[in-house]
């Protein structure tokens, strides 16, 4: 692939990709750890997730700053411009994913204080699916692979189905015994957070498609209406 004549610009873009990757892998780890803190009843890990989120926030700020600097100083065009605008949007999704992992960890810390509920196998499947979506969206970004990103967008149906099954299972537990309500509600929140993580992965994947192909695939049903 041709490189930029301006080596400093080339380096800026390289740094941007590296920083996004570092942030992405940190966020992936936060999700995994937050889920482990629940399944392994490991409250130390839960605390670590809460602390690590500060670094994700710092990365978001640094990436935004780098993007603004590149926009101001380099006037990027074409694929460079699409990379920068994609970066500016996906850092927000990554940061939100980090926040959701923190929320999951918080709920886990609470749940770990009480005896475990009868196991809900769908929860670990939902957690795996959400992590997998984030991982595949980030891989699609790294490899600038629009086909892989499209697969992520399609993959959201599984997450939604798992979420609804889990929701009903937890409702059932609540109806069986009112002592379950507090814990089942926490698990419902966790399920919702995982489902939201999946939505953010979709956002990332949609931006990857835009970055690679230059076509905006978001909100297909809103197409054809022009803003006033």
């Amino acid at each position: 692939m041709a490189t930029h004549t301006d080596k400093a610009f080339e380096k800026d873009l390289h740094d941007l990709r590296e920083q996004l990757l570092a942030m992405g892998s940190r966020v992936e780890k936060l999700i995994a750890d937050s889920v482990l803190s629940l399944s392994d009843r490991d409250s130390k890990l839960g605390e670590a997730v809460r602390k690590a989120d500060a670094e994700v926030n710092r990365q978001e700020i640094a990436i935004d700053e780098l993007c603004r600097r590149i926009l101001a100083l380099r006037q990027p065009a074409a694929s460079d411009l699409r990379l920068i605008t994609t970066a500016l949007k996906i850092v927000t999704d990554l940061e939100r994913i980090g926040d959701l992992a923190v929320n999951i960890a918080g709920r886990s810390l609470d749940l770990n204080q009480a005896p475990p509920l009868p196991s809900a196998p769908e929860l670990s499947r939902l957690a795996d699916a959400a992590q997998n979506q984030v991982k595949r969206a980030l891989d699609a970004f790294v490899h600038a692979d629009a086909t892989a990103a499209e697969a992520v967008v399609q993959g959201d149906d599984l997450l939604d189905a798992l979420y609804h099954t889990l929701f009903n299972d937890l409702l059932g537990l609540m109806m069986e015994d009112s002592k379950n309500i507090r814990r089942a509600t926490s698990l419902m929140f966790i399920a919702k957070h995982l489902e939201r993580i999946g939505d953010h992965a979709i956002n990332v994947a949609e931006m990857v498609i835009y970055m690679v192909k230059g076509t905006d695939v978001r909100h297909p049903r809103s197409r054809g209406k022009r803003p006033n």
Partner: protein
Amino acid sequence: MMQLTPAPLPNPPKLKVEAKGLSVRYGDKVAIKSVSIGLPERQVTALIGPSGCGKSTFLRSLNRMNDLILGASYEGEILFEGQNVLDRAVDVVDLRRRVGMVFQKSNPFPKTIYENVAYGLRLADVPPKAELDARVEKSLQQAALWDEVKDRLGESALALSGGQQQRLCIARALAVEPEVVLMDEPASALDPIATAKIEELIHELKALYTIAIVTHNMQQAARVSDVTAFFYMGELIEVGPTAHMFTNPREKRTEDYVTGKFG
């Protein structure tokens, strides 16, 4: 929401000038090869590309300025209002009145501001003083220079700043009421403020004229033009709506050029 894939225009604009299979040679050297492109009426078309790509040769073909270069020869045709301007029978003086030109370096005549603008009008015929005054004023206003020079029309044009001189040259080109205005790097010798004034002027002028501009400054092309054409090594590589050319060009060579990956 911005669609980056080029949507077909509801009514394709009329092409004011259309080159078909245009090749230009200087002696044995081929400067441009079989270029086909139209200039949409009352729009700004930017011609971009590295030095020696043929963009200025293309521009200067449109009003036969290349004729002045020894050994220049043309193939193909350039239709202007249906007539081939490369036809030997074409009156090039009349052609250059209808297809005016502004150059990189402002080149006012060593005369008064007024006489610079009136010069072309006097060549055609000598209109009555009142009419001449009116047309000089109108041209200077169109060139956004009137307010700055109206009290000093009798002063030498050479006393004006670089940016003012360039707008004076635009006024001079407009005075003979052209239909097309060709600009060859019109702002490359100007400071950013004077450049912004020229760019603003281009926006205003396109309501009345069809404009083609050669520029090395890609941000300038992005700012002022509706359509951008990328030339490379004498060929037209890609032409399309400017927003599309700068966000999602089709051709790899265009992509490499607008992102600064050449050479």
